[in-house]
């Protein structure tokens, strides 16, 4: 699992330009400095002025609502990811009184937290209201009662958090659905106090490559054309650039690959549905013909099956 591990030291850039008075003025200066940085490099990731829409956020919210009902409380995969991420808190000597948790798998993160990092105030944010309701109702059962938690419904791309107000931002499997990943990370950085920490786990480019191949081949055979079924995911090599571009001072990236075995392709799809990770591309075709689905399942089985009849699926985390 790759984790973005950032420590933002007190930004000397801001200090140089700071006037002795108002904060709004400083905010304005810092935002212009970021936007000029965006214009300078024109690499593969879209810079925020163009606002390219890849994902349908409304649909994603509906899918997260459904996932809030479907997700089993002991889903081993999500918990493994969250555990790995939260372990990173123990590598830092700092304590984090305020923490912001962005959507993805909020409940798993909170369950894995168990007092690490000395967090006193926890803000949970998600685009889906149902998911937050679920977290709230399960809070009574958990043992983290000394932590004061507040729940916010918000979008990761438009953070409703005051600047320089949190010490720690955690995002577990949420940021790979944002339209503008650099922008979202920049907003996270702005919300962080100087010397704050940003931890995120997103899915990487190798994820579900078997599914991608099976879908493409099946669709080519049955229909003669292809439409995107698996969303574009960040590549390993771009991860470091993303971090530095957002302005974080000490970036660190880890990659981790999980191969999960399922009994059939249908089980894989059901699991994805339960995690809220199903297709939300704007370019998707809403129609999936029954024959194509059948063909995909058959091809997945034949191309990638192991000896005991189970099929593997790769999940790459960074």
């Amino acid at each position, binding site marked *: 699992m790759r984790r973005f591990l950032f420590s933002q030291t007190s930004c000397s850039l801001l200090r140089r330009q700071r006037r002795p008075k108002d904060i709004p003025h400083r905010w304005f200066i810092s935002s212009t400095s970021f936007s000029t940085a965006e214009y300078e490099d024109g690499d593969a990731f879209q810079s925020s002025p163009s606002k390219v829409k890849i994902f349908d956020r409304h649909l994603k919210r509906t899918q997260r609502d459904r996932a809030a009902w479907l997700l089993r409380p002991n889903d081993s995969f999500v918990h493994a990811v969250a555990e790995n991420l939260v372990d990173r808190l123990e590598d830092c000597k700092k304590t984090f009184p305020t923490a912001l948790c962005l959507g993805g798998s909020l409940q798993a993160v909170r369950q894995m937290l168990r007092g690490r990092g000395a967090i006193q105030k926890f803000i949970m944010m998600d685009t889906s209201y149902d998911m937050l309701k679920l977290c709230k109702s399960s809070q009574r059962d958990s043992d983290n009662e000394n932590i004061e938690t507040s729940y916010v419904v918000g979008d990761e791309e438009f953070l409703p958090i005051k600047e320089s107000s949190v010490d720690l931002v955690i995002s577990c499997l949420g940021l790979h659905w944002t339209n503008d990943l650099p922008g979202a990370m920049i907003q996270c950085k702005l919300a962080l106090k100087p010397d704050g920490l940003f931890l995120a786990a997103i899915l990487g480019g190798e994820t579900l490559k078997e599914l991608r191949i099976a879908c493409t*081949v099946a669709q080519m055979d049955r229909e003669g054309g292809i439409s995107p079924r698996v969303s574009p995911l960040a590549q390993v090599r771009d991860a470091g650039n993303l971090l530095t571009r957002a302005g974080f001072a000490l970036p660190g990236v880890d990659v981790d690959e999980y191969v999960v075995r399922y009994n*059939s392709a249908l089980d894989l799809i059901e699991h994805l549905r339960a995690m809220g990770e199903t297709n939300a591309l704007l370019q998707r075709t809403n129609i999936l013909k029954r024959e194509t689905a*059948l063909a995909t399942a058959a091809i997945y089985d034949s*191309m990638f099956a192991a000896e005991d009849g189970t099929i593997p699926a790769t999940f790459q985390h960074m």
Partner: protein
Amino acid sequence: MKEKKTISPLRRILVNCTAQANEYGACVAAKVPEVERDMCLKEFLALKTCMQNTLRGKV
């Protein structure tokens, strides 16, 4: 939340038609780098008839 386990039609089809599905899958897997339309048509038609039989009522 499903109280009862409703088995989706696709799953029933896959359970019933495993032999045809395996044949079709093997055919496609053998030709994988050059995929064209209706490449393994015969095997797929066999799978399709099995699917229709399953849906019609477990023949």
